[in-house]
C-alpha cells in the first residue's frame, strides 16, 4: 500500500534509539562514556547543548518518542543530518518534556513520521527544569539544610490535578558534600521555602557553612520506529 507515494511502502524493521542517560545539575562533570549516544555524560550546569545520538547504517523512521527523567526538562530537538541542522520547532523554543514525550505504556505518536538519514546525528539541547546546584549550610546530626548561594531550593509543585501542592523535590535525592541524602516527603516537611529544606534523615557529615549541594536530573530519551532498507530511502 503506497498511500499515494508512488513508491513501494517499506514497513521497516523494529528499532529504538536511546539518547542518554546523562545528568544535568550533577555533583561533578563527566565526559560521556559513549559519545555516540551521549551515555554517561554529566554536567554541573542546568543545560547541555548538542547532545547526540547517531543513526546507524540504515535510515530511521521515527514514529514514537518516549522519555524518562528525574524531573521535567525542556528540549530543542534537531536533525543534524538535514544539512541545516533542522529544528523541529520553527521558533527554536525548547519544548517541555511533558508536552513531547510519553512512556512505553503510553507513547507519544508523531502525527507524521520523520525519517532521519543513516549515519547522521539526532541532536538536542536540554535544559533542566527541576534540579539545582549551589552551596548550603548543614549541621551534623540535624536534618535541616539552609541555602547559602547558587540555585535556590525548588518550591515548584508537580503539575496537573493528581498532585496538587506536592513539592517537586519531595523524596528526591540531594547530594551534599559528596554524599547522597533524601529530601523528606513527609507532610509539612521537605522543601519548606526557597532557602530551607529538611532531610529524611539527619545529616551525618561534618558541620559546614559551605557544603556543595546538587539535586540532579538524569534524562533518557527514546526514539522508537523502524529501520528502513537503504534502497527505499527517499531523497
Amino acid at each position, binding site marked *: *500500500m503506497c*498511500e*499515494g*507515494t508512488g513508491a513501494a511502502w517499506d514497513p521497516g524493521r523494529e528499532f529504538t534509539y536511546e539518547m542518554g542517560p546523562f545528568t544535568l545539575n550533577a555533583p561533578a562533570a563527566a565526559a560521556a562514556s559513549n559519545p555516540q549516544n551521549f551515555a554517561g555524560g554529566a554536567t554541573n550546569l542546568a543545560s547541555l547543548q548538542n547532545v547526540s545520538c547517531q543513526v546507524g547504517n540504515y535510515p530511521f*523512521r*521515527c*514514529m*514514537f518518542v518516549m522519555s524518562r527523567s528525574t524531573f521535567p526538562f*525542556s528540549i530543542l530537538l534537531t536533525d543534524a543530518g*538535514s544539512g541545516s541542522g533542522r529544528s*523541529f*520547532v*520553527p*521558533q527554536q*523554543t*525548547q*519544548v*517541555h518534556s*511533558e*508536552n*513531547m*514525550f*510519553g*512512556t512505553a*505504556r*503510553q507513547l*507519544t*505518536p*508523531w*502525527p*507524521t*513520521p*520523520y*525519517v532521519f*538519514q543513516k549515519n547522521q546525528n539526532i541532536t538536542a539541547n536540554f*535544559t533542566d*527544569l527541576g534540579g539545582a546546584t549551589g552551596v548550603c549550610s548543614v549541621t551534623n546530626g540535624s536534618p535541616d539544610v539552609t541555602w547559602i*548561594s547558587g540555585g*535556590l531550593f*525548588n*518550591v*515548584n*509543585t*508537580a*503539575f*496537573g*490535578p493528581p*498532585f*496538587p*501542592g*506536592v*513539592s517537586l523535590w519531595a523524596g528526591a535525592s540531594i547530594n551534599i558534600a559528596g554524599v547522597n541524602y533524601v529530601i523528606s516527603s513527609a507532610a509539612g516537611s*521537605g*522543601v*519548606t*521555602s*526557597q*532557602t530551607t529544606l529538611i532531610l529524611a534523615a539527619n545529616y551525618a557529615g561534618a558541620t559546614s557553612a559551605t557544603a556543595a549541594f546538587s539535586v540532579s536530573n538524569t534524562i533518557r530519551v527514546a526514539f522508537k520506529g523502524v529501520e528502513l532498507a537503504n534502497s527505499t530511502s*527517499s*531523497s
Partner: protein
Amino acid sequence: MEQGLIFSRSGTRQRLYRVSPLLFSQYQTENFRFLPRVRDLPEHGLVTRFYVFDFGYSNPSSQIAPYNTAYCPLQLGRDFLAHTVTATYESVGPQVLTAPPAALISTTAPNVSPGFLVNFLHTHNGVQRQWSNKSITDQESTGDGMTPLILRDPALLPQGDTITCMIQNLANVTLAAQIVFMGGEFDTDSYPQEKAS
C-alpha cells in the same frame, strides 16, 4: 477510501470500527472515537513540526502573574497541519540566583486545577477567528505527551497566518505554562522525507 487497520468488536461486518495501532496504548479499541475522520496517524508527505506557545518554561520572563492574561502569537512559516494539542503548567516561585530578601522567599507554591483558561485566535487575511466561543480550561482543551488531544480533523494553518494562544491564569500564584501544536508541515522539498506524490 479510508485506510488503516480494522478490528471487529462484534464479529459481524455491520459492526466494524477502524482503530489505530498507533493510539492503542492510549485508548485501546476505543481510539476510533479520537481519530481524525479522514486520516489515520501517522501520515506521510509532511515534515514533523511543533509550534510551541511558551509562557515561562523556555523564557522565564514570560511567566504569567496571578490572574493575568497573556498572549503568544506565532506566525506560520509554511502551511501546517495541526494534529494534536498538548499542554503542561505548574505554579512557580521566583527564580532568583542571589540571596533573596526575606519577603520574597517563597514557600512551596500550591498548584490549582484547572490552572488556566485558553483560547486560540487564528488570523487569516486580516480576519481573526477564535477556536472556541469563550476561553476554556486546560483540561477541556489540551492533552499531554502521553495522551495528546487529537483534533477530530487536522487543522490547516496556512503560511503567513498568525495563530495566537491566549491564556488566563486562574491561580493566585505565578504560573508557567506551555502549549504545543504537533503536526506536519508541507516542506518535503527542503527535507528528504517520504513524499506524498
